[in-house]
């Protein structure tokens, strides 16, 4: 174990508790895990309580306060990975290493763990090994991998040799992939003033691509109402299972992203810009720093103070106020609203939070003009959007489609194979029955079927309940635990769903599933709990017959319609008793 002192490891970081995530990453990278002694030293260094550090470590998936192996292997547990055979991969790992999932080998060399979707659904099954993604895993690859790692081979070399490097397969691109028309360094000269930028964005009709669809221009205008200094934050924490479009945009279009952020900074007159990158995309960190450094020669970029903050694994941090908490080095628990981030955001400063795709589109709108953007899409949903398509399709990958595209058209594009169910917008989105033709005529748009970009297709061979239970378990795992309905309610819903699936349900259990879903949706504090019961409610609407079938075939030994009075009526008649 590395005996280096904490103060030496973190000497490059400013003495600032808001950078706690960076400190913890630095220590974990150097020492493998964060020991009680490290916590003690760090607390002294930052002049904060040890408990404040423990609170943060225990909140995130990828921080460890115990040894977790020289090579920590995290297996993707998304339903797409399950269908692609991650369970078999897990078995191979278990047998080859001689440990169970969740354990570490005796020599401390390997640790085997599970994690939520890692953004590789187009190349499932996949795993993160020391935060380096290994995609398209097979049993042979796993066996070779372990042998080579034991021999002392380099991870990155193995990733390449075994053909496990993530690829971005773009099947359709309408706007983003166009090359810039002119030298990008001259872009800023044509940007007139903040008001013109905001006007241009408002005219384009651009709405946030995270899912909620708040008009981007309006958000910026609202933020400008509050006195500065103001802050620009990019949400690169896409965690919705089945989505991976930000991975592609960050890899291929980081320049457009940073320009989009710089344009936003100019529009709200801000000098601070932060990119919050999900831990699952740690492997993109160097690339992003490289692009950003290269852009520094442009004054538009140079006048801004930039920081790329690496997350540590928590789906809930995708919620904008939770993201700000995490950016401040705390547990990623959503804040109460009001006040909204546009008024009080990062460290209390007025802040705009937009996601990766939104910023990329901002720079395209500014470059090409709002008319060329508006020519795509529908009235309420202007422009194009990226879909991450995965599941039972012949061409999984990335598709840039116009808003208003029909589900049928999307299925044709991606080569869906006898589709039974489509999950639009991930587990928090909507479950669609793909065998009902009228459903396939529905349009992806804010008017009809909004989506944050995840698009999972499941064929007729799949068991719907397995999918739904995977989704509910995901929400149970990812709830932050702050509010009652989400923390306790999702557990109750998950158990109730299991009861029905296991064949122990009665008709009233279906009713309670609906009613309890309503309770969690209506009373939760943030979007996670407000949308997690949609797994149940939208699937009950799409596939009522599968729920009904479970109830009908339930083999309960109890006779629920037993009528006591009828059964004892003879006795009552003879003895003249009346049980009213």
């Amino acid at each position, binding site marked *: 174990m590395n005996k280096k002192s904490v103060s030496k490891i973190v000497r490059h970081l400013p003495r600032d508790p808001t950078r706690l995530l960076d400190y913890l990453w630095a220590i974990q990278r150097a020492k493998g895990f964060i020991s009680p002694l490290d916590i003690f030293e760090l607390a002294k260094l930052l002049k904060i*309580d*040890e*408990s*404040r550090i*423990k*609170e943060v470590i*225990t*909140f995130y998936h990828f921080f460890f306060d115990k040894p977790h192996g020289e090579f920590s292997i995290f297996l993707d547990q998304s339903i797409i990975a399950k269908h692609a055979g991650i369970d078999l991969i897990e078995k191979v790992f278990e047998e080859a290493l001689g440990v169970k999932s969740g354990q570490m080998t005796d020599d401390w060399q390997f640790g085997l763990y599970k994690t939520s979707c890692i953004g590789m659904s187009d190349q499932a099954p996949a795993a993160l090994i020391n935060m380096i993604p290994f995609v398209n895993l097979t049993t042979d690859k796993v066996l070779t991998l372990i042998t080579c790692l034991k021999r002392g081979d380099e991870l990155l070399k193995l990733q390449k040799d075994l053909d496990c490097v993530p690829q971005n397969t773009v099947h359709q691109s309408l706007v983003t992939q166009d090359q810039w028309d002119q030298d990008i360094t001259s872009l800023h000269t044509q940007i007139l003033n903040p008001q013109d930028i905001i006007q241009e964005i408002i005219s384009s009709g651009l709405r946030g691509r995270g899912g909620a669809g708040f008009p981007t221009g309006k958000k910026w205008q609202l933020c400008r109402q509050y006195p500065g200094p103001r802050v620009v934050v990019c949400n690169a924490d896409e965690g919705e299972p089945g989505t991976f479009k930000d991975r592609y945009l960050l890899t291929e279009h980081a320049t457009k992203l940073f320009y989009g952020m710089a344009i936003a900074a100019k529009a709200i007159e801000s000098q601070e810009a932060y990119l919050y990158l999900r831990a699952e995309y740690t492997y993109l960190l160097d690339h992003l720093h490289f692009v950003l450094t290269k852009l520094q020669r442009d004054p538009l970029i140079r006048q801004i103070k930039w920081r790329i903050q690496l997350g540590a694994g*928590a789906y809930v941090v995708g919620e904008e106020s939770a993201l700000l908490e995490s950016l401040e080095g705390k*547990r990623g628990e959503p804040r*109460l*609203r*009001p006040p909204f981030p546009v008024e009080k955001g990062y460290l209390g400063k007025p802040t705009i939070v937009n996601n990766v795709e939104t910023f990329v589109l901002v720079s395209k709108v500014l470059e090409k003009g709002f008319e060329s953007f508006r020519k795509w899409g529908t009235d309420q949903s202007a422009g194009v959007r990226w879909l991450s398509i995965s599941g039972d399709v012949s061409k999984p990958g990335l598709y840039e489609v116009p808003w208003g595209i029909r589900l049928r058209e999307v299925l044709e594009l991606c080569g869906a194979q006898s589709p039974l169910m489509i999950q639009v917008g991930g587990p928090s989105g909507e479950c669609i029955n793909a065998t009902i033709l009228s459903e396939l005529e529905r349009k992806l748009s804010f008017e009809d079927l909004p989506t944050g970009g995840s698009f999972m297709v499941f064929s007729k061979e799949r068991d719907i309940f397995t999918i739904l239970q995977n989704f509910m378990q995901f929400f*149970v*795992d*990812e*709830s*932050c*635990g*702050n*509010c*009652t*309905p989400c*923390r*306790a*309610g*999702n*557990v*109750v819903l998950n*158990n*109730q769903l299991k009861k029905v699936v296991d064949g122990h349900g009665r008709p009233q259990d279906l009713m*309670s599933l609906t009613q*309890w879903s309503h*309770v969690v949706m*209506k*009373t*939760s*504090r943030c979007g996670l709990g407000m949308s997690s019961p949609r797994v149940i409610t939208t699937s009950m609407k799409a596939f009522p017959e599968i729920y009904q079938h479970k109830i009908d075939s339930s083999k309960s030994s109890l006779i629920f319609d037993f009528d006591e009075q009828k059964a004892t009526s003879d006795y009552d008649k003879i003895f003249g008793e009346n049980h009213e």
Partner: protein
Amino acid sequence: MSNVFFQCDGKSMQAPANTTVVEALKLNGEIVPTLCWSPGIEPCLGTCRVCTIKINGKEAAACTQTISENMIIESATDEIRDLQKAIVELLFVEGNHYCASCEKSGDCELQGLAYQMGMTHSRFPYQFTPYELDYTGVHLLLERNRCIHCKRCTDLFVDDKQRKVFSFEGKGSDTLVQMNHKYESELSDHKRKEVVDLCPVGAIIFKGKGFDRPIGTRKFDHWGDKIDV
């Protein structure tokens, strides 16, 4: 300060601007059940969600919202009462609440609320999750079976040196309150009493002490007299 006018369940009401919805309603004699919130807790915690009501047709926690002109509030409707009761029932199945043997019985806000709402059982199945009890403190006992994760102790309580004694660890349904044993051992008499009183349930109690007050003089003993069950 000027008053704002609003409606609650069809009745016109008024309250000073900048008051929270829960207080504005209270000023007008309309009691909203609360658990993590109590008068003086500002800013609110917004964790328990028991005070969920409808504002302009949309559900919101009354403690987290500020009253504003022409707000239309639904508070005592069957639908809202049922949502509020459901949350209390959720808390009862999540933890292990055995009122009959609890030192806080009669002084417990969760128990009081359950009686007030006429709760006879929980609609949800009991989880029976075992929670570890922290008996290693010098003065205080942390009985996590009764914890409702309201965050009063973690967010509102500091010792005489302004240090936080309680914190949250873990995530989701594994979230647990932790006690800093060094700071706990140094707590002064009045600070100990403060945090025991701050805890709405019997999760933080005095060590080595059983029942505090005889039946009949406890906080909620006469609260229920007015309520028809």
